[in-house]
């Protein structure tokens, strides 16, 4: 398999999504268009012929649930090993826990909440081509859709926390600087030696780290071993590698070994330097300068490359890491990124399960989804919304731009607009919900 191993970090019960996810529904199983979000990643990997996966889940319970679902849904299709790690170890901790299972040359790490159609092969190929230590997938941050009609201040806040500040070389292949947008307040610090080496640094704020990384295994393991305070890949490991790319500490042993392997036991040192002179006639000024830096082999090997693969704008790429993202992704998967959902749309461009019952004069518009066993009364109207399983909806109900999860009861005359309604919620008559991000029943039984 091209010497790659795949680790899917499926997370646990993320607090950020608190009411949506619970003990019963870990994050990985959160339904997006009535399919667990993890299935999008697994199918993306499967379509790339990556069938041996390690799925890491936080928490024993969650791991059991995820494992149970995977073994049911992908019994003959994928070879998945589920590993449970304690909660709150972070992504780095999760990787530490499975590090001893990793044997391949490179490791592809994918976040379980990624909904995307960017081929993982592209990231892996870029990684291989450059012989990079780490390659990350950057994608254009999704432009918030029409449902995003909340106050502009709130929107800005959301954006700020989501986006990254990314520094790239002129060829847009080397990753020279990365910082989470939230951490940046007014100014960013760029290292002088990197800037000098590249000559030109392009700083962009419209790119998002999609949490798909290709790591060189030896380097990843070294970093995880040496820096045991590192908690998160995105916040600690990646910035660390990017920061130290010109004065690599890990590469002293790790890279050297790899480099030797690549050159295939051609023992003469002279030969290795000869190669380093001529092998990489660079696409950018970067490597020229690297080559120009004093030619001693140790010095040349003291650098490592961090690369970025920028997905084209036509590709869909989003992470389910906030409630806003949840409703956005739900909307997109039946809307603009409908090829991801895996459903076949009707001629009205919607999906209505045959077991769903519709009353008279009820209309279900395009880009809608009505799952099995749901009932709707008369004169309802559903637009750009997803309605989960076994919902009971009365008459004269209008649902626009919303996500209604499973087993929800909505009585007559309600208006739901731009909201997410969690499972088991019961809405009484004539409720009007507009742009409520989340409606959920804290004590579902008592409602």
């Amino acid at each position: 398999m091209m010497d790659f191993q795949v680790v899917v970090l499926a997370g646990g019960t993320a607090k950020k999504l608190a009411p949506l996810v619970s003990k019963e529904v870990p994050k990985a199983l959160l339904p997006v268009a009535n399919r667990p979000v993890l299935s999008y990643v697994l199918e993306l990997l499967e379509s790339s012929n990556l069938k041996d996966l390690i799925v890491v889940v936080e928490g024993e319970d969650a791991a059991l649930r995820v494992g149970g679902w995977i073994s049911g849904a992908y019994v003959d299709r994928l070879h998945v090993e589920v590993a449970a790690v304690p909660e709150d170890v972070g992504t780095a901790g999760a990787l530490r826990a499975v590090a001893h299972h990793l044997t391949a040359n490179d490791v592809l790490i994918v976040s379980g909440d990624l909904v995307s159609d960017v081929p993982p092969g592209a990231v892996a190929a870029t990684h291989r081509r450059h012989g990079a230590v780490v390659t990350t997938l950057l994608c254009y941050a999704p432009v918030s859709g029409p449902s995003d009609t909340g106050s502009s201040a709130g929107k800005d806040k959301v954006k700020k926390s989501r986006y990254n500040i990314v520094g790239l070389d002129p060829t847009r292949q080397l990753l020279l600087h990365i910082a989470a947008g939230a951490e940046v307040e007014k100014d960013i610090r760029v290292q002088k030696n990197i800037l000098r080496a590249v000559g030109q640094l392009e700083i962009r704020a419209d790119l998002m780290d999609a949490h798909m990384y290709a790591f060189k295994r030896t380097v990843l393991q070294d970093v995880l071993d040496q820096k045991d305070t590192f908690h998160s890949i995105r916040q600690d490991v990646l910035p660390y590698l990017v920061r130290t790319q010109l004065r690599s500490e890990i590469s002293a042993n790790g890279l050297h070994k790899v480099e030797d392997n690549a050159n295939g036991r051609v023992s003469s040192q002279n030969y290795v330097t000869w190669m380093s002179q001529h092998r990489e006639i660079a696409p950018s000024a970067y490597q020229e300068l690297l080559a120009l830096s004093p030619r001693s082999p140790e010095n040349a090997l003291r650098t490592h490359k961090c690369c970025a693969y920028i997905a084209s704008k036509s590709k869909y790429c989003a992470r389910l890491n906030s409630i806003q993202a949840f409703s956005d992704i739900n909307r997109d998967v039946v809307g603009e990124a409908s090829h991801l959902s895996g459903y076949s749309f009707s001629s009205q461009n919607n999906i209505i399960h045959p077991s769903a019952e519709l009353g008279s004069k009820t209309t279900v518009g395009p880009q809608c989804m009505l799952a099995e066993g749901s009932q709707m009364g008369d004169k309802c109207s559903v637009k750009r919304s997803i309605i989960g399983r076994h919902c009971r909806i009365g008459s004269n109900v209008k649902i626009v731009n919303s996500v209604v999860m499973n087993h929800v009861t909505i009585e007559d005359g309600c208006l739901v607009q731009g909201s997410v309604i969690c499972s088991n919620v019961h809405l009484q008559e004539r409720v009007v919900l507009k742009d409520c991000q989340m409606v959920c029943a804290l004590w579902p039984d008592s409602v």
Partner: protein
Amino acid sequence: MDVRRGQRTVIDPKVRQVGFVPAGATRPPARSHSVPTDACSSSPPAPELPLSGSSLSPVMIPPPRHSSADGLPSLSRSAASPVPIPASPLRRDTVQIPIGSYNPSESVLGSSPMISPSSRLDAVSEFSDEVPTSAWLGRSGSGKFASSFPSSSGEMMTMKITGGGSGGGGNTPKSSLTTASVVKALPGVSEKDRGALIEVQNEGISKPQKQKTSKAERRAIQEAQRAAKAAAKEAGEAVKPSASSGGALPASKQGKVVKPSSQKKDGPQVTAPVVPSEKKVGDRIPDKDRKKDVPHPRMQFDDKHRVEKAKRRAVVNQSEARNRVELFRHLPQYIHGTQLPDLESKFFQLDPMHPSVYKVGLQYLSGVISGGNARCIAMLLAFQEAIKDYSTPPEKALVRDLTAKISSYVSFLIECRPLSISMGNAIKFLKNRIAKLPHTLSESEAKSSLQSDIDRFINEKIVIADKVIVGHAVTKIRDGDILLTYGSSSVVEMILLYAHELGKQFRVVLVDSRPKLEGQALLHRLVAKGLNCTYTHINAISYVMQEVTRVFLGASSVLSNGTVYSRVGTACVAMVANAFQIPVLICCEAYKFHERVQLDSICSNELGDPDVISKVAGRNDLNHLESWADNENLQLLNLIYDATPSDYVSMIITDYGMIPPTSVPVIVREYRREHLWI
């Protein structure tokens, strides 16, 4: 151009003496006379042929008589009689004509219109990466008949068909209970198969003959053929005056009459006189079919059918550029930027490809690796890795399976970027090493021996060769010299650095050209080392040349007529230097030599991304051609290589010493064994 022609005629006699002193010294004059005699009276040369054919040692230049005998008489005869092939079996036995010999250029000078196209064809078709033995066969055989492809496919066919036929025969009676459609389907199929089977059997009979015949037998056959030919000719000449069509009929009848008798005889031991005629008739029809099957050694990309076929096989999704320059339509040109994303997204889907090979392919495609030596080394190292991880599948022989594997890797690499000649030579070497592996070796031993072979090749043919070249070249640099170089050649860089280390006082004029501007990187390195440099672009070459004392150039390949195949612009630099009477020294490792002959840069070249010449990076005010790519009236041409005629080359510095360009064929010929065997 006119000047060039004039010079050539002056230079050529000198060339002949220098190039072929050892054995051919006495031959050339005789040769030149023999051509006309051949052409006019066809009977005398016949008895001489076996002599020359058998006494040819690999050192000697084969007299051009063969080619002329193939070309002229057969053509003249074909008008008279419908047997145009009699010459072809002859050709089979005439020890291979080293294409590196001087025939082609000579024939062009001699302006014999018959030969030049054929010789050029040979030269073009020569570049195949097969194991030399098969290449030998392919070259010496009549046309494509004996090349390895058809024979193997033929064998496969027989296997398949006999299996299917017997299976069908066995099944039909039994399967009377099964549905009717099956029964109906079978006879039709079997009939077809039978038809095919007969054809295949014909081939099957004729083929073993060819392979099994010993030397004595072959000679017998040859003599028989000659006799037959002479007879046919006499007959033809006798009939000629009366009517050409009348002459055609009896000959064809003869052939037909002979054919059944030959079919009755089984086995390869057919009496001599029958063989040629049988081959004549038997070969003709399948030959036509084969021409379709056999992939042309070098894809001609203006041939739509073949391009379609290749596309279906291709791993890399290649969408071809629409607007191409007329003269260069036969070269592949793809819309740049479509290949890489496609290949990248398929990264995990290509299972049989070894990761290291894939990596190198990606690097070729993205231009991370460029330069003849770097590409060759990267490829060999990737193959080394692949061999290291290779394990023979059960019930397969390492030799065969690994060769197939390497071939598939090579075709993948070709899709990423056309091979350079040096890479072709390296592949030939590797395949030869695999083929020559002793059967007694265990798998691990074989693998380690191949890996060390690759190491040795890189070390001896490239690394040490470069050192030797540097050693030679430095003797040509004196204090106060002003050296000009073009582009960025790794060897030239080493030479300059070494000379600088030796403390020689000289200045470097570095000529560069758009769009790659490779010279800038070199300039950077040289200046950093403290060399005194002048940097200019190629449009100032005529001015800058005045002060220069020597020109050092690298090469992608040196062809056996002394033509230097190198980065585009090299020819221009060499010509200007020649006009100023400044010596032009080409630095090139001997593993890059090739026996091919090329007279221009058209028939074989590489096209780069046309967009890079229309766009000027960082100058938005100059990008007038921004979206003109689809304009039908505009065709952009970005050639990668050009061919420098040997007249403009003073000397080639190679690991075998400093030689005139005319000695290249000698090196190619004399050291071929050494190249392949180390």
